[in-house]
């Protein structure tokens, strides 16, 4: 039998909270993280709402106990990864083979943009020490260094499915007995590069996004980080704390349709969800909650919905897009939403899909509008679909 992989710890920082407790509190109160741009320096301030983590780099650096001269992507990642390891509370971690698989899409680009402004005007200006951590791998290296992880580290960059793929890869390293403990997930900070880029694609909602609504206008950009700590069954025998759940299924498939848009029949997302179900040995009716990719763009929600219809019709489980709270955190979204999925099982909650009003005319189902509590949730599916047709589904199961 395929060896099991267990979730032993979680860590998170998003626009709706700087840790697990704060995020859960925001869900309870229905408080979205979007607001007028307050931290990133851009001409889009007051025009486009974003979901920023409500702390300056200096404040983040204080929490992370590190210099504020490093990229915001690293600061966010370090805070969430530290939380996850602390939460897992694994005794004698140093005697176990431990790795980190961290995803991001922007690297230290926030610092590079800052450098670029002075440098372009005068190439003797700008401080090179501000751009030493530009590339994506530097973010993971810095986090691994701070956590003292030496056995294995790598960075995955497959757009918005990046950190879900990091979790798949981490699980495989445990299943193949190459590692005992893996911290997997991702981090991304808001940058001008991505904000301008998504703006040119004309898929940013000028209001707060409305995923899976008939009148949705696009996505809101967000930032944050989310990590899970995965352990082998051998490690669980020595653990005192209760495990959250296991990662029972996963799949990555390619939509093979378009560079950035998803196919009308949702082939990639359908194959990812179906493959994850097959891997877990579950039937569609076993799924108790779907954490949707649900960006709020016309294209995504239509194709994701079509794929869900193909797989689940006529019996749909409760579903929602937590991007209605956190915005779309790009390379971090798979990790952040994996944490939410794990917490849904632990606390028996189904998160609301904020601002949903009108059911999409194509479908006979709708996301949850209100938080549901005291639910029995055995299996949660978490979807992450990225540019390049890269589609990933994860399934977390109660143990």
């Amino acid at each position: 039998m395929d060896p099991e992989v267990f979730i032993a710890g979680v860590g998170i920082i998003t626009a709706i909270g700087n840790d697990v407790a704060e995020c859960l509190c925001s869900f309870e109160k229905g408080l979205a993280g979007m607001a007028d741009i307050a931290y990133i320096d851009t001409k889009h301030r007051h025009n486009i709402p974003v979901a920023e983590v409500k702390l300056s780099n200096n404040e983040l650096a204080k929490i992370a106990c590190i210099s504020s001269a490093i990229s915001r992507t690293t600061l966010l990642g370090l805070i969430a990864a530290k939380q996850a390891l602390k939460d897992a509370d694994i005794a004698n971690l140093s005697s176990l083979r431990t790795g980190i698989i961290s995803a991001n899409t922007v690297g230290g680009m926030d610092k590079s943009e800052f450098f670029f402004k002075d440098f372009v005007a005068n190439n003797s200006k700008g401080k090179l020490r501000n751009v030493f951590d530009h590339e994506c791998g530097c973010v993971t290296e810095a986090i691994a260094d701070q956590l003292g992880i030496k056995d294995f580290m790598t960075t995955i960059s497959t757009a918005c499915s990046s950190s879900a793929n990091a979790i798949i890869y981490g699980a495989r390293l445990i299943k193949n007995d190459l590692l005992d403990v893996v911290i997997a997930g991702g981090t991304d900070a808001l940058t001008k590069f991505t904000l301008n880029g998504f703006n040119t694609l004309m898929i940013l909602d000028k209001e707060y996004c409305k995923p899976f609504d008939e009148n949705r206008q696009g996505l809101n950009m967000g930032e944050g980080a989310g990590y899970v700590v995965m352990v082998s069954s051998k490690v669980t025998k020595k653990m005192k704390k209760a495990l959250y759940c296991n990662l029972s299924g996963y799949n990555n498939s390619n939509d093979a349709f378009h560079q950035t848009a998803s196919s009308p029949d949702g082939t990639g997302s359908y194959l990812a969800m179906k493959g994850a179900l097959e891997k877990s040995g579950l039937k569609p009716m076993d799924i108790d909650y779907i954490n949707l990719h649900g960006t709020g763009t016309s294209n995504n929600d239509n194709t994701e919905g079509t794929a869900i219809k193909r797989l689940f019709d006529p019996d749909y489980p409760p579903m929602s897009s937590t991007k209605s709270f956190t915005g779309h955190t790009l390379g971090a979204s798979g990790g952040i939403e994996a944490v939410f999925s794990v917490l849904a099982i632990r606390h028996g909650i189904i998160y609301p899909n904020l601002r949903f009003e009108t059911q999409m005319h194509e479908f006979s189902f709708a996301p949850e509008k209100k938080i549901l509590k005291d639910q029995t949730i055995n299996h949660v599916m978490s979807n992450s679909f990225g540019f390049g047709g890269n589609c990933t589904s994860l399934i977390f199961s109660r143990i």
Partner: protein
Amino acid sequence: MDNLCKLGWLASEILLKDSFKKDNYRAQDIGLILSNANSSLDTDQKYMESVNDIPRSSLFVYTLPNIVTGEICIRNNFKGEDAFFLFDYFNAAFIENYVNNLLDNNVLQACICGWIELVGDEYKAVLFLVEKLKSKDAVAFTKEQMNKIFED
């Protein structure tokens, strides 16, 4: 299509043009595991230049390394697992381990893997087609063979 995608596209056309029998496989059983050192830097720079004037969406869509995997998938209707890894150098040991795992666990039945790197006028693409049944002229899928072919 940006230059990195053109390079990957052309290299995959050459790789697959003669002996590959796509119809022997289901679309979801063919995947891609690619790598390079500089991600999509070539287009990242061009896109950043456009930001000074009008940011161009036609450039922005190529500012991710895995768009080239997407382009090859679109061209050939490959729907299996794909990933893009960044390494300072061509890490044949990693590729061998990763692809073998996908094939041994029947996640894939055939895999295209290797290196696609392009910055400015400098480029290098080395792709390998890995299948379970030995075809004529095939060599064993080992890091040593890959390194030898890569260096040649």
